[in-house]
């Protein structure tokens, strides 16, 4: 959500519609109560999450030591393969999540939750549930159906709890339904990695000492079947359900609860299908029929709920993209032209617009257009709270930092100068105070007007007149300024700073010329956030002037600054290549393949050869057990041989089909 949309993220991450106009640095609720901007370190649930994950990580590492003792080489080789698996999955998730902004620490926490807490809790719950199933019904039933009945509730609940935890701990970073799916998928990747590595280590030690080939075979089997329909997909669906329940407050409660329950049911059903013996039975039945591959039945049983899950996630992703594009369109032409806002709405639209640019100006220009689109979406998807702290009263505006080219707008927030000490208390003066009556509320959020031990209030303090209800007024409305500082801010006191001597005008200071003009979609520039009482008659006015002390610490650029600079840089790049600063609209015109590719033997050979590197990567996954079998002078399992052949053939067919259909849409 862009700044100025009238929504506030409160100090604990709660979205408060209708709050002040500048979320995060605005500090009033609709009812006028004071809140502080959201901060991760002030969120207790974040520390709980961190503590639980830390303890679980220690326990998991301790357990991993036993795996290393049991099968050192298998664990090492398996860990390498699992690392590749995790990297590939995270890359795939990133490809599906081009619109979102995911902080690395949140991604790491999600993955750690899946890899540690979920595995421990899911394993323990699965064990106890399976035990209960065996005792309650029969061990035969538990043996055949246990994995299908027990694993979905035990593991899915343990994993989806991580997504709920992320919502409780870092709510401002999870603002779309698809964000829940993304973090759910990451939790699932962490879970699958540790679970698969554990299975591989146990398999390596099952019948032979440190059997690396068996460990690799187990890993390849678990990676390839059921493939994409695994823990990342289950938890993505469940996480999307959680996100729908918590984010889509524009829907009715019944609908949100219904979608939540439906998503959990779909995740459980997909997980149950993967673990179900029915899949094996269907596979055996279809295997008897001519024309069916050995795993067709299994893939059908697993694939149907998997396809439904993918379809729903794709719909969520489209909805999120449309929402972002809507914000982009509402942001005005400075951020995106109407054509650009229309083009970024869908993945195809973005690709068509970039291809149109590419046809006219070359592939570099197409790439530059894609960068512009990405920068626009990243900027409009920023979390609503800027990393600022409330500006204390009486502090001065720091001089503008000399880096206008890198951080053109807005300038960094001012640095607080040390406060004069002791603070002159206006109440020590005889009544009437120099402050305008009525007596203002505490100017510092959360700091009551209690008598200070340093500055005792005379006992003869007369009663204060009641505070009349004051209607809110525009921020820009000038108000009188206090001549002195009313409260002690939490900074190191020093006597080296002279007292306040200047009182600048209320409202935003003029923009320093070297920063350039602010884009029109941004809120009015303010040197620091406006206080909640700004502009309210009779209240403490906005910050007064104080002697300026140059900041010794270089302020970090805010996310808005970084993203704005990123967009400006992308536009400059596009302009250098095409002469235009915006991406024009493009029709749905497919790019014809170069004729030399379609009509010459060399061209067709190039297409064929291009498919092989990817096929080789897939082949390597199967080749490892083969190499191990050859090294140990053992006969190669028939299934491994068939799997190798299937990977090579199906991989080549798949890649060749995709390339051919993309390159030769009119020929085929």
């Amino acid at each position, binding site marked *: 959500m862009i700044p100025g949309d009238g929504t506030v993220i*409160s*100090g*604990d*991450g*709660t979205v408060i519609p209708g709050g002040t106009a500048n979320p995060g640095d605005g500090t009033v609720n609709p009812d006028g109560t004071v*809140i*502080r901007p959201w901060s991760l370190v*002030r*969120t*207790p*649930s974040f520390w*709980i*999450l961190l503590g*639980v994950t830390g303890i679980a990580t220690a326990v998991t590492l301790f357990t991993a030591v036993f795996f290393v003792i049991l099968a050192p080489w298998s664990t090492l080789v398996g860990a390498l393969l699992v690392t590749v698996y995790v990297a590939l999955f995270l890359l795939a998730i990133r490809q599906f999540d081009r619109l979102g902004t995911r902080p690395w620490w949140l991604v790491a926490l999600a993955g750690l939750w899946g890899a540690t*807490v979920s595995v421990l*809790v899911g394993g*323990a*719950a699965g064990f*106890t*549930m399976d*035990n*209960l199933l*065996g*005792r*309650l019904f*029969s*061990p*035969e039933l*538990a*043996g*055949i159906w*246990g994995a299908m009945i027990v694993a979905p*509730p*035990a593991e899915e*609940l*343990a994993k989806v*709890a991580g997504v*709920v*935890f992320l919502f*409780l*701990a870092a*709510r401002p970073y999870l603002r779309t339904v698809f964000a829940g799916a993304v973090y759910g998928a990451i939790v699932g990747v962490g879970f699958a990695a540790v679970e698969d590595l554990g299975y591989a280590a146990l398999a390596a*030690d*099952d*019948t*032979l*000492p440190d*059997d690396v*080939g*068996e460990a690799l075979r187990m890993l390849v089997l678990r990676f390839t079947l059921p493939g994409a329909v695994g823990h990342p997909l289950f938890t993505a669906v469940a996480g999307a359900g959680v996100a729908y329940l918590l984010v889509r407050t524009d829907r009715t409660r019944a609908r949100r609860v219904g979608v939540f329950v439906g998503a959990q049911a779909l995740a459980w059903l997909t997980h149950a299908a993967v673990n179900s013996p029915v899949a094996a039975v269907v596979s055996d039945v279809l295997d008897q029929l001519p024309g069916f591959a050995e795993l067709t039945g299994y893939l059908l049983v697993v694939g149907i709920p998997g396809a439904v899950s993918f379809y729903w996630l794709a719909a969520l992703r489209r909805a999120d993209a449309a929402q972002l594009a809507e914000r982009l369109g509402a942001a005005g032409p400075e951020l995106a032209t109407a054509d650009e806002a229309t083009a970024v709405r869908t993945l195809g639209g973005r690709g068509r617009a970039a291809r149109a640019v590419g046809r006219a100006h070359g592939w570099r220009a197409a790439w530059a257009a894609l960068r512009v689109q990405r920068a626009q979406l990243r900027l409009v998807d920023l979390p609503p709270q800027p990393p600022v702290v409330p500006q204390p009263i009486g502090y001065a505006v720091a001089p503008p930092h000399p880096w206008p080219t890198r951080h053109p707008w807005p300038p960094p927030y001012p640095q607080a100068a040390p406060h004069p000490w002791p603070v002159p208390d206006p109440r020590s003066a005889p009544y009437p105070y120099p402050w305008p009556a009525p007596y203002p509320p505490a100017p510092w959020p959360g700091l009551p007007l209690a008598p200070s031990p340093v500055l005792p209030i005379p006992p003869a303090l007369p009663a204060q007149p009641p505070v009349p209800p004051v209607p809110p007024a525009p921020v820009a409305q000038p108000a009188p300024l206090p001549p002195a500082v009313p409260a002690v801010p939490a900074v190191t006191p020093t006597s080296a700073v002279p007292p306040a001597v200047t009182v600048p005008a209320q409202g935003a200071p003029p923009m320093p010329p070297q920063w350039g003009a602010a884009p029109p979609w941004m809120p009015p520039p303010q040197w620091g956030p406006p206080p909640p009482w700004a502009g309210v008659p009779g209240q403490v006015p906005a910050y007064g002037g104080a002697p300026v002390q140059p900041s010794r610490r270089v302020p970090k650029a805010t996310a808005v600054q970084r993203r704005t600079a990123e967009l400006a840089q992308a536009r400059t790049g596009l302009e250098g290549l095409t002469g235009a600063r915006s991406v024009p609209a493009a029709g749905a015109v497919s790019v014809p393949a170069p004729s030399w590719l379609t009509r010459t033997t060399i061209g067709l050979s190039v297409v064929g050869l291009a498919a092989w590197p990817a096929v080789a990567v897939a082949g390597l996954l199967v080749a490892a057990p083969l190499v191990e079998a050859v090294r*140990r002078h*053992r006969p190669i*399992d028939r299934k491994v041989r068939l799997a190798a052949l299937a990977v090579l053939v199906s991989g080549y067919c798949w890649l060749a089909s995709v390339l051919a259909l993309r390159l030769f849409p009119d020929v085929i």
Partner: protein
Amino acid sequence: MGVTGWKNAGLAVLLLVGLGVLAGVPALLALPLPSEGAPLSGERVDIGFGATIAPPPGARLDLSDSRPGTGAVTLVAGEVRLRLTAQQFRGDVGPYVAHVRHKLDRDDWLRPVGDPERVTTTSGVSGERGSLSGDDSVDVDPGCYAVLTARSIGVVVLASPVADCAELPAPVWAAVTSIEIDPAAAQ
């Protein structure tokens, strides 16, 4: 920090409690339930991987550890527990059997005593058996093990507590020798 921050913290703690309940409640519910099934009728029990056994008279299934058909069955015959594990192995029998002995020592603290004896079941499945003594450092009952193999299928039998294989009750040893392995059924 607002009230909602502490509310979220409370919800987080509740969530952790819920995860504990998820794992703990099934265990509590299982406590009052019997851990052993009814006496087996004498029908052969499917161990898994094509291996079956005729249980000793009056033996019961351990409901917690037994998953017939998946390769793990534990029979309780009087004081003796008979743990049967079926698995598919690759390669030669020698390394497999040696690894079985190593795992008994490493995981169960049961050290093989003396040289193993050759055994053959009534169905012709061959293998070896040997006595096991508990590790001095831990309090473990002694026992007797047997490893039976047919092609690439192996069945490991661990009977305890018994002083040695010679002390194994006759019905229990009869049950061990009744083990049949059909490798074709394992495919």
